[in-house]
C-alpha cells in the first residue's frame, strides 16, 4: 500500500514537472513546430495526471482530442504556412498577452478554489467513492444526457454554426 502511494507521488511529480516544463517551452521556443510539439507533451502529461486521479475516461479524451486531433491540425497548418522563425519573434501581440494574463489569473483562482473547497467541507454529490463504484464513463454519460442535456445540445449547435461559418468563409472568395 505504501509502495502504491509512493509510486503515485513519483508519477504525479514527474508529470506535473512535465506539464510545467512543456508549457514554458511552448512560450519560449522560436520554432513554431517545436512549440506545438511541446504543447503535445504538456497535454499528454496532463492526461496522466487525470489518470492518477482515477479518471481514465477524461484522460483518454484529453489525449484523443487535444494531443491527437487538435494539435495535429495545428501542426498541419504550421507546416502549410511555412512560418519563418524571425517573423514570429518580432510580432508583438500586446492585446493577446493582456487577455492571456487576465484569463490565466482567473483560471488560477478557479484551480485554487478547487483545491480549497474539499478542505472546508464543500463536496459535490459525485465523490471518489461513487466513481469507484459505478465507473467514470457511466457517470459522465448519465450526467451529460440527463442533467446537462440542454447545454450539451446547445454546444453541439454552436459547433455546427462554427462548421457552417468555416465553409462559408472558405467558399466566399
Amino acid at each position, binding site marked *: 500500500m505504501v509502495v502504491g502511494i509512493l509510486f503515485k507521488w513519483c508519477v504525479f511529480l514527474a508529470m506535473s514537472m512535465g506539464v510545467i516544463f512543456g508549457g514554458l517551452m511552448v512560450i519560449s521556443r522560436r520554432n513554431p513546430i517545436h512549440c506545438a510539439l511541446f504543447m503535445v507533451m504538456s497535454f499528454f502529461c496532463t492526461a496522466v495526471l487525470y489518470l492518477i486521479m482515477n479518471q481514465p475516461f477524461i484522460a483518454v479524451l484529453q489525449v484523443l482530442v487535444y494531443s491527437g486531433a487538435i494539435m495535429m*491540425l495545428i501542426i498541419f497548418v504550421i507546416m502549410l504556412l511555412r512560418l519563418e522563425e524571425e517573423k514570429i519573434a518580432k510580432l508583438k501581440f500586446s492585446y493577446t498577452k493582456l487577455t492571456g494574463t487576465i484569463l490565466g489569473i482567473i483560471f488560477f483562482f478557479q484551480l485554487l478554489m478547487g483545491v480549497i473547497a474539499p478542505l472546508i467541507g464543500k463536496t459535490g454529490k459525485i465523490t471518489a467513492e461513487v466513481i469507484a463504484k459505478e465507473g467514470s464513463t457511466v457517470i459522465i454519460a448519465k450526467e451529460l444526457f440527463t442533467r446537462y442535456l440542454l447545454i450539451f445540445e446547445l454546444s453541439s449547435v454552436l459547433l455546427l454554426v462554427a462548421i457552417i461559418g468555416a465553409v462559408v468563409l472558405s467558399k466566399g472568395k
Partner: protein
Amino acid sequence: MLFFVVETVIKTIVVFGVFLLFCAYLTLAERKILGHIQVRIGPNRVGPWGLLQPIADGLKALFKEEVVPERSDKVLFIIAPMISVSMALCLMAVIPFGDHITLFGKKINLVIANSEIGLLYLFAFASLADYGVVIGGWSSYNKYGLLGGLRAAAQMISYEIALGLSCVGVIMISGSLNLVDIVKAQAGGHWNVIYQPIAFIFYIICALAEINRTPFDMPEAESELACGYNIEYSSMKFSLFFIGEYAHLMIVAAVATTLFLGGWHGPYLPSVVWFLIKTFLIVFFFMWQRGTFPRLRYDRIMMLGWKVLLPLTLANIFVTGLVMVLAR
C-alpha cells in the same frame, strides 16, 4: 499486490516478445504472399524457405551506416521513428488475446490491462502514432519528405473519424468500451459482424487508410513522392518505421477480431489459438488485397473519406440506434 505486479510484468514481456517476433515474420510473410500472387518465389536463400530472412534483414539494418541530413532537425529526426514504433507497441496493452487460464491456483486473465476505456485508449494512442510519420517527414528537411508527412497527417485525420464512427455500432450493441466485455458479449456465436456487417466493411476500409496500405498508401507513394516521409531515413531508423507499420497492421487486425469476429471465442481449440487464427486471416486479407488493388489518387482518397465513408458510418449509427429502440 506482489502477485499482481509479477503477473503484469511477465505478461508484458511475453506479449512484447511474441508480438515483435510476429512483426518481424510479417515482413517475410508479406514478401512470400506478394511473390506468389505475382507468380514469383519470394525470398528463399537465407535458411529453409527463407525463414531466416527477417533476422538477416535486421542484422543488415543494425550494421548499416546511419545518415543524418545536415540541415535536418537532428533531435526530432531521431525521435520520430521512436514515437512511431513505441506508440504502436503500446496499443497491444488493452487487447484481450485469450480467455483466463489457471496457474498455481490463481486465475490469470489473458490481457495486460483490463481497462474500462480500452477502445478509446486504442484510438488515442493510434492518433499519437501519426506524429512519428509527420515529424519524420518534416524534420528531414526534404520536400518529398514534407509532402509525405503532410499527406499522412491529412489522410489519418480524415480516416480516424470514420474509423471511430464505424466502431460506435459495436459499442452500442455491447454497451461497453471495455474490450474484454465486448468479447464476452459475443459469446455463443453472437459475433458482431452478423449484426454490424456494414460497419465491419467500413472498419476494414478505414483501417487500411489508417495504416497507409495500398490502395491508400499515399504518404509513401513511390512513383510520385519517392517514398515520402521516410525518404531520408536509413539503417535501423528506417527499420523502426517499418516495425511500427507492421505492428500497427497486426493491431488493426487484432482489433477487428476483438470487435467484430468474436475475439477469442471458438470451439475445441484453446482461446489464444482462435484469436491468432482470426487475426492472421485478416492480416492475410490485407496482404492479399495489396497484391490486387492499384493505388487511389490523392483527391479521390480524401473524397472517399469525407463524402462517402463519413455520412455512411453516421447513417449506420442512426440505423443501429433505431433498430435497438424498436426491438426493445
